[in-house]
């Protein structure tokens, strides 16, 4: 593709578009072209063909994934807005609601990591404030290739990508003044050519202020606000809907450039209009993927109206832009407003006060047509429905991936790990970049601006308080792609279960999820299998945990030269804390507190398939992924939450990568003086554990989903045990020992156990990532 080379004077004629099949370069198939011809009853001209191509791209219309998305549970008693708008909304009481959504920016970040990640933040923020909400928190879920030469094709490139993606997020998020409070960063060679950059934004809104992206009422004005339109990001949506091959490095013209300062002004101006001038605002929508055409067509579609836009009035930053370029540009920091006729000047005045343009570029019509005028001529005239509701929908074939048979045959028993020195394995796990502290990364994010952040990055979930109430919100992102690679359906269940465990460990009730479904090419039946089965697993878990899917995004074609990433459906979950008194962290608080292992009825099982310890000791992953008992996990979570609310729990930490041993260590590491937990014990630097587990050594590293390391003040031990038993007979609380003050991690087992000084283990854990990246 060479977007920038499109001639402004001699566009191909409709016949030439047909004969040269230029649309193939826009990822539009012959069949889709014919479908467009049929809908118009004539040949589309160059501009119209471009509009069809982009509106029917996977990125805009989800033509391959819609049938799967329809299987998600999306409703619930608290859900005020499910999928279909800029973001989903959940009632949190007190007249307030939480608004959230996640979005991927994988392809742009692979090519231009700084701007790709930065504009990923900018884009998701606009989705949130377009609903009328103030963005209050950002989380990032990142996946990169490995950081050691032994496991990477180009380790320097991987380090560069980490550095630049983090810098991009930091640059945009810090400047706009929305705290980056959490997320996750993992490393695996499958992400080397195609890193994943998923950004989740959480906003707060008074229920009365909820907006919709509708262009209703014939005669009302369509106003363009924010930055000018340039040639950046043209065909970004179709760019995101293709797999990478050699040479995509040259597609930089499809990557947008962000201006967080402009966006900051845009947030304030839009919220000013929404809060103080709502009577003259009919609808508001972000210009995201596929820019002007997508936002305007969707607004008309949702209202069942038509639009007449005069493109000469679109603010342009470059000369001689064609209708095609203007409609498809993905220039950042732009919004589209539908304003009651006659009130345009009021809107203009508000935006001028924030130093921004607001220009009327068209009007709502009642003919259902999407009509564009440029230089006195009609350059496009298409039924709105043809671009939106009538986009193609594919039920693509799926077949079980060939890999699964081989993977299931792999021995994933405890013996296969060949662990001879558990203390050494333990330290190696703490140093592995996926387990190691991510402080090196989140240290560069302003996590406290807006002064609501109670729990900063580094615990199971981040927590922000909700002003003017006693409540708080917990939020997390989670997905272990390895599990889904081994078994998509069980892996899908685990992703949601893990997210729920994170939320519960912080003292909150899970409310709902958003997702970013990152997969390879849907034309590959094996990828469709992964997508379908993992979606089924996610759906099942969402039903059990009563967390409907309220928003999300699908990112397909995450492949480099036909090598797909692990199927990675990132789950972003938000939970509600009824009272800030319930806020709980993973850090142990006091020497002498009892340490419990809270599990399902089966306790810790030999679950090593896809585990961090398997990757570490055998160099690869495989085996049969054990199915999870969602009801038992939910029961365990209920037991924990009840005990937290009753005040019996000092700390709680979900057992995940690295197993119980790592969970115990991370709890003992607590927070150092720099991270400002607020519940910090001055002795945190020297805490240790004295525990005994009736297990063989390898089981210390098993990743049994739905298990927790919980500490309980010595005086509340009986109450805690009684509470767990009364709440969930399925849950098992096993007393392991106590928090010690001798600074030793002393873990006895039926084998050698682990004995390491807390500070030396912490040093390994804390410094590993910085060492690998420098």
């Amino acid at each position: 593709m060479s977007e920038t080379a499109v001639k402004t004077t001699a566009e191909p004629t409709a016949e030439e578009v047909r004969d040269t099949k230029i649309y193939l370069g826009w990822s539009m198939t012959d069949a889709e072209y014919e479908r467009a011809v049929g809908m118009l009853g004539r040949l589309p001209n160059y501009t119209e063909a471009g509009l069809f191509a982009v509106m029917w791209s996977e990125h805009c219309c989800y033509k391959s994934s819609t049938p799967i998305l329809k299987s998600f549970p999306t409703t619930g008693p608290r859900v005020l807005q499910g999928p279909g708008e800029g973001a989903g909304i959940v009632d949190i009481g007190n007249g307030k609601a939480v608004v959230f959504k996640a979005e991927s920016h994988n392809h742009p970040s692979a090519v231009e990591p700084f701007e790709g990640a930065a504009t990923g933040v900018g884009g998701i923020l606009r989705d949130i404030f377009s609903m009328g909400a103030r963005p209050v928190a950002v989380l990032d879920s990142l996946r990169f290739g490995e950081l050691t030469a032994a496991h990477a094709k180009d380790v320097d490139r991987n380090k560069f990508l980490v550095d630049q993606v983090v810098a991009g997020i930091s640059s945009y998020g810090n400047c706009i003044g929305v705290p980056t409070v959490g997320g996750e960063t993992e490393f695996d060679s499958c992400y080397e050519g195609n890193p994943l950059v998923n950004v989740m934004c959480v906003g707060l809104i008074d229920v009365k202020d909820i907006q919709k992206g509708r262009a209703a009422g014939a005669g009302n004005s369509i106003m363009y606000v924010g930055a000018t339109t340039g040639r950046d990001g043209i065909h970004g949506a179709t760019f995101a809907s293709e797999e990478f091959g050699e040479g995509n490095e040259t597609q930089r013209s499809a990557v947008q450039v962000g201006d967080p300062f402009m966006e900051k002004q845009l947030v304030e101006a839009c919220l000013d209009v929404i809060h103080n001038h709502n009577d003259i605002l009919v609808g508001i929508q972000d210009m995201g993927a596929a820019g002007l055409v997508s936002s305007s067509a969707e607004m008309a579609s949702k209202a069942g109206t038509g639009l007449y836009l005069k493109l000469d009035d679109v603010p342009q930053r470059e000369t001689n832009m064609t209708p095609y370029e203007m409609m498809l540009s993905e220039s950042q920091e732009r919004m589209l407003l539908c304003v009651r006729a006659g009130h345009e000047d009021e809107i203009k005045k508000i935006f001028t006060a924030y130093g921004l343009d607001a220009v009327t570029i068209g009007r709502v019509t009642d003919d259902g047509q999407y009509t564009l005028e440029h230089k006195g001529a009609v350059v496009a005239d298409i039924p709105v429905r043809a671009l939106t509701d009538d986009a193609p929908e594919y039920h693509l074939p799926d077949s079980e991936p060939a890999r699964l048979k081989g993977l299931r045959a792999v021995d994933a028993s405890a013996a296969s790990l060949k662990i001879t020195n558990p203390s050494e394995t333990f330290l190696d796990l703490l140093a592995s970049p996926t387990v190691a502290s991510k402080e090196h990364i989140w240290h560069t994010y302003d996590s406290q601006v807006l002064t609501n952040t109670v729990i900063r990055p580094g615990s199971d979930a981040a927590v922000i308080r909700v002003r003017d109430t006693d409540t708080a919100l917990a939020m997390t992102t989670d997905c272990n792609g390895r599990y889904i690679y081994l078994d998509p359906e069980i892996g899908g269940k685990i992703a949601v279960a893990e997210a729920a465990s994170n939320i519960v460990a912080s003292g909150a009730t899970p409310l709902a999820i958003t997702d970013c479904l990152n997969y390879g090419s849907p034309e590959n039946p094996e990828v469709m299998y992964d997508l379908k089965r993992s979606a089924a697993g996610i759906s099942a878990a969402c039903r059990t945990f009563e967390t409907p899917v309220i928003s999300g995004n699908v990112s397909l074609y995450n492949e480099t030269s036909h090598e797909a990433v692990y199927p990675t459906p990132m789950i972003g979950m938000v939970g509600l804390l009824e009272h800030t008194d319930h806020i709980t962290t993973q850090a142990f608080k006091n020497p002498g507190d009892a340490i419990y292992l809270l599990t399902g009825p089966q306790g810790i099982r030999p679950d090593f398939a896809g585990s961090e310890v398997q990757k570490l000791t055998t160099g690869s992953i495989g085996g049969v992924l054990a199915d999870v008992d969602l009801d038992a996990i939910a029961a365990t979570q209920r037991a924990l939450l009840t005990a937290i609310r009753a005040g019996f729990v000092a700390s709680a930490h979900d057992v995940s990568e690295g197993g119980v041993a790592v969970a115990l260590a991370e709890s003992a590491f607590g927070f150092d003086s720099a991270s400002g937990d607020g519940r910090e014990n001055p002795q945190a630097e020297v805490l240790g554990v004295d525990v005994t587990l009736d297990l063989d050594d390898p089981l210390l590293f098993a990743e049994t989903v739905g298990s927790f390391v919980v500490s309980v003040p010595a005086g509340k031990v009986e109450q805690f045990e009684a509470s767990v038993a009364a709440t969930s007979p399925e849950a098992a609380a096993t007393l392991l020992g106590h928090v010690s003050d001798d600074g030793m991690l002393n873990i006895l087992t039926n084998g050698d156990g682990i004995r390491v000084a807390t500070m030396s283990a912490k040093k390994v854990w804390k410094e590993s990532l910085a060492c690998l990246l420098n």
Partner: protein
Amino acid sequence: MSPRFAVIVFPGSNCDKDLLWGIKNIAGMNAEFVRHDATDLSGFDAVLIPGGFSYGDYLRCGAIARFSPVMNEVRRFADEGKPVFGTCNGFQILCEAGLLPGALLRNTSLRFVCETAQIEVANNATRFTSKYDPDQLLRLPVAHAEGRYTVTAEELEQLKANNQIAFRYAKGHNPNGSVDDIAGVTNKAGNVLGMMPHPERAVETLLGSDDGLPFFASLIDSLAA
């Protein structure tokens, strides 16, 4: 009548709401936002300049904001001996405007740093620090990429001689490479103070520290006197 506080809002300020929340909702004062293009500060008893990225911090932190119309009024206000406080970007703006000596350069790490820093009260004889004990250790959040305070050797001697160093990072806890561990300074007259740490982020124990409360209490006290 309790004193009135002005919180200046530049395009790109992003700690303005935090500062207003701290002084108004937590400290219980009269406070309101004043836009960057305002030309009148009469009726206000103190001026607070928030953190953020004024004008995107394009060109150089605070370099554009110093030319905002309101800055003429802030200068006049300071010249009258009334208290002016700037945190983070506010500190950078006050330095760029020449109301405080020195400049703030990129952190030695070349990275943005967000953490709760250990701060030492270097001088509790200012109108902003009187409620602190001498040498009291505070936990105050910092969040900046350009916080490395720099002055010439002679200026540094003058700062010391005039007791203008209000806050220092505790030994071994300097997050940005500031000269002499300086975290906050006053002007010679003592009525203008700038600091990189955010006292307004430390006014509620729920959020991790309330070590910033005595800062605002000191300022309020000085207005009553």
